[in-house]
């Protein structure tokens, strides 16, 4: 019955992985939307700051971001437990990528749309929120969806800050049983299943949100 126990341990790890993803994914999207908007419509200093954030978090390996948050921040007086550390790192990292998709989606909306809104007497904030954003977010869905899929895989780094997620549980079980190949194959397959599930869900969302929108990109391909 050894395999049953292994399976159980992996399930416990899977629970942690899912918790991590459920916490980090919405946070990342929220950061991405805010930073994306800031980069396009913010005043100059905000734009520069947003750009620096994107550049830093996209140019540094996630492992190092994770270690800086977990090991270095306590020296600056901010001590976070492993779980919030991991969630923060994942959210900040994926937020940087989301924001780039949001930014390019915002830029792809013709400026006439914004001008039209302003001409009708809307304030810029209202025009952006009511006219630009609903169109742009739709366009950002495929890119951001991809990023969410990456997040599922990135979450495997959580074991590096002592969390026992799916990968961490797999490691422990592999060392205990010396069945390295089988264990990591199963672990990989579970990630694969999660990725497939996420892709299916995202495709549904994409189809649903696109309806009635004349998407040029979709017809060209």
């Amino acid at each position, binding site marked *: 019955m050894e395999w049953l126990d292994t399976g159980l341990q992996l399930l416990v790890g899977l629970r942690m992985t899912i918790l991590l993803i459920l916490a980090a994914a919405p946070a990342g999207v929220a950061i991405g939307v805010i930073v994306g908007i800031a980069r396009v419509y913010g005043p100059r200093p905000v734009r520069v700051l947003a750009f620096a954030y994107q550049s830093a978090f996209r140019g540094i390996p996630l492992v190092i971001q994770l270690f800086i948050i977990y090991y270095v921040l306590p020296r600056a007086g901010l001590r976070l437990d492993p779980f919030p550390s991991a969630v923060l790192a994942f959210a900040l990292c994926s937020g940087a990528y989301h924001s780039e998709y949001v930014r390019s989606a915002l830029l792809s909306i013709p400026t006439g749309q914004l001008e039209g809104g302003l001409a009708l007497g809307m304030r810029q904030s209202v025009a952006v929120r009511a006219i630009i954003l609903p169109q742009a977010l739709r366009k950002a869905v495929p890119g951001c969806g991809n990023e969410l899929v990456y997040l599922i895989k990135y979450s495997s780094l959580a074991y590096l800050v002592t969390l026992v997620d799916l990968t961490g549980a797999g490691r422990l079980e592999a060392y205990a049983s010396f069945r390295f190949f089988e264990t990591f194959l199963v*672990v990989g397959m579970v990630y694969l299943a999660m990725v497939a599930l996420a892709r299916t869900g995202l495709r549904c969302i994409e189809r649903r949100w696109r309806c009635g929108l004349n998407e040029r990109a979709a017809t060209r391909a």
Partner: protein
Amino acid sequence: MVQTLSTLLSGVGTTLLLLVLALGIGFTLGVPIGILHVYGRRPLRLLLSGYDAVIRGFPAIVLLFLIYFGIGSLPGVRIPSLHAAILALGLRSAAYQGRLVEGTLRMVPMGQLESALAVGMRRTMAIRRIVLPQALRFSLPGLANEYSIVLKDTALAFTVGVIELMSRAKFLAASKREIAQVYLLAAALYWILTQLGLLGFGWLERRARISGLGSGRR
């Protein structure tokens, strides 16, 4: 600080080795894979899609563990950690670059292939001489992206004991007091390497540009 930096720098060589070999394997396998995704026979395409789904569905670190601990622990197999890391990163990059090249091959208008066939080229030659050179130019922005992704993934190699930049940082952080300095310096080095690579690809893109040919964004 200077000593920390010089220790970290001594790991950069291995990081670059991992990066270059992984990208090299990825490109050498990825271009044919991309071509087969588009022009291959159906069973072959299905097989490649399977490879693709598995490789891209596994987290990099699980793939690395599977190769180093998993395959490496099978009877009669011995894989040094460096080789395992190169293999894992290379196979991953091949899958991603394959998809990239597939996408850019499809961006080349169909008329290009048809007219090459019409002037009497064989299909393989038309693909190699006419379609591929255009597609590879369109691929450059994607390759730049892949460069930065693979560079960052090399930082996972320390988990199987490869001595590169990240593992140097970890050693230093474990043995010294100034953890903050070590990790921030390591972060800065990775950031610089990322930016240098992106500059390099930008230069390559300008060099390879042919006036009149679209930049790939149409």
